[in-house]
């Protein structure tokens, strides 16, 4: 398996490592990057959905973001990826503030967001869906892109089998693989996953969770995982953050959170 720094187009590799000082690259050395959100305020029109949220995700760690419906978990991911504007606060990717940038700029900076509800484009083929993931790359030799695609096909065999078929023919679990593979093709340093197990059968859910752990260990990806299923999220996470009504009500090691019965009952429903 790749070490994570090669196997991508050469243009992407050198840019990611901070050389040449491209204006939309945050030149941090090495692959892993921490993500920190500091006093974030964001909302929709009149509604404030995040009311001063601070979360620290260490480089290469998995952080579970938990809480009831409407707690602000999805809003948090949307604010980090630039889908909605942060009204106040900072978003620090390896100590560079990316708050206020557009989604197109943020994905180039190294944060990939897989929104809830998957976002497979059913009218396009599997391969076309994947190629979209590489749209943030700088121009480089085609061979780099082909190699990157093959790498993902090697990891996700069902996608390789269906590469020229419309994405509408994929099952729920395969679609989840597709959107994760697409996000990985953007060569992110931070991955935001919003309810990746939604609507999946338990066995497939377990496969997705295993995949997330693998991505974190193998590629050193920093992962922010929003999950309704708090139990399985805490089982794989290093750290957990619990949101309620737009505020952080608990932030601790995942193991500690999992055993705090009062907290679990109150906010997480188990």
């Amino acid at each position: 398996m790749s070490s994570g720094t090669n196997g991508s187009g050469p243009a992407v590799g050198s840019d990611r490592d901070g050389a040449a000082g491209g204006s939309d690259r945050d030149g941090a050395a090495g692959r892993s990057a921490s993500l920190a959100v500091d006093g974030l305020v964001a909302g929709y029109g009149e509604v404030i959905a995040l009311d001063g949220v601070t979360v620290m995700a260490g480089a290469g760690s998995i952080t579970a973001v938990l809480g009831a419906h409407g707690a602000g978990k999805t809003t948090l991911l949307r604010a980090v990826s630039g889908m909605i504007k942060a009204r106040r606060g900072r978003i620090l990717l390896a100590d560079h503030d990316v708050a206020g940038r557009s989604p197109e700029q943020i994905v180039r900076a190294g944060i990939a967001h897989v929104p809830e509800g998957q976002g497979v484009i059913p009218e396009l083929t599997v391969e076309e869906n994947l190629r979209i993931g590489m749209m943030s790359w700088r121009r480089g030799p085609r061979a780099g892109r082909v190699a990157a695609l093959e790498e993902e096909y090697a990891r996700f065999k069902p996608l390789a089998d269906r590469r020229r078929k419309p994405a509408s023919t994929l099952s729920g679990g395969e679609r989840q693989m597709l959107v994760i593979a697409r996000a990985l093709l953007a060569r992110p340093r931070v991955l935001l996953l919003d309810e990746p197990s939604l609507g999946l059968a338990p066995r497939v859910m377990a496969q997705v969770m295993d995949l997330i752990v693998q991505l974190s260990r193998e590629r050193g990806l920093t992962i922010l995982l929003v999950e309704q299923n708090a139990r399985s999220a805490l089982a794989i996470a290093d750290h957990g953050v619990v949101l309620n009504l737009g505020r952080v009500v608990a932030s601790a090691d995942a193991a500690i959170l999992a055993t705090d019965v009062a907290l679990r009952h109150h906010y997480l429903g188990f």
Partner: protein
Amino acid sequence: MVEFLQFTLSGIVFGMIYSAIALSLVLIWRGTRLLNFAQGGMAMLTTYVAIEVIYKTHSYWAGFVIALVAGLILGAASELTVVRPTAGKPELNAVIVTIGLLILFEGLAGIFFGGQYRSFPAAFSVTGLRVNGTPLGVSRFDVFTVAAVLATTLILAVTFRYTTAGLRMRAAAFNATVARLSGIRVGRVLTVGWALAGLLGALAGVLVSPSTFLYPNSMDAIFVLGFTAAVIGGLDSPAGAVVGGLLLGVGLSYVGGYLNSDLTSLVALGVLVVVLMIRPNGLFAGARMRRV
């Protein structure tokens, strides 16, 4: 029998014009869910540009090419200045804005070029072609018209399907959020879409103006017919736009030829109403729900 052939062939020629307008409307609709009411006005303006260039340079082809380029520029400029600010606001704003653009273009044309009907040259001979002495009802210029629209459509189709730029445009049209999150600069894609629509409109304008003469309102009727063709084919479907245009062109040609040429406008509008009532998604639309 000869009459049938003549009506069919000339119907195909006009049908191609309607297809070009329909395609330009579909391009914009797919990208932005907007109906560009100013499309006819843009085509008219670029045709005026063509005629001025032709007068000054005495070269038809210079006028032709510059009209197409002007179409690209006018489309892109319209999107950037006037349409982009309406994104995210109530849809009615965008509708009013494009109607406003139409009024602006027609007014500007009247001011700068005057309201009188002007004749527009054809690229090739407009004498009817004959096969073994039988008049076909179409001329060399008509053949050129069909070829030009077909060629442009094919080039666009190939670009959309097989290039990365085309994939970018399709992704942005199908799911702008996913496109953004993948790094596609959706704004730029929209501008390109409008530029291409302007190009198609400009093409339609220079191809049809020899028949209709050129005046500030000359493209209004063509716009309605192009819109009808687009609705017939389904506003989401480029293939539908082409087929819709052909069906409409040939159908109206039969109506005008066999019944009464005064009936064609009535029938066209009647077709539009019927299609909107019975199958508003058009003949070619899949059952795709629109994502909210």
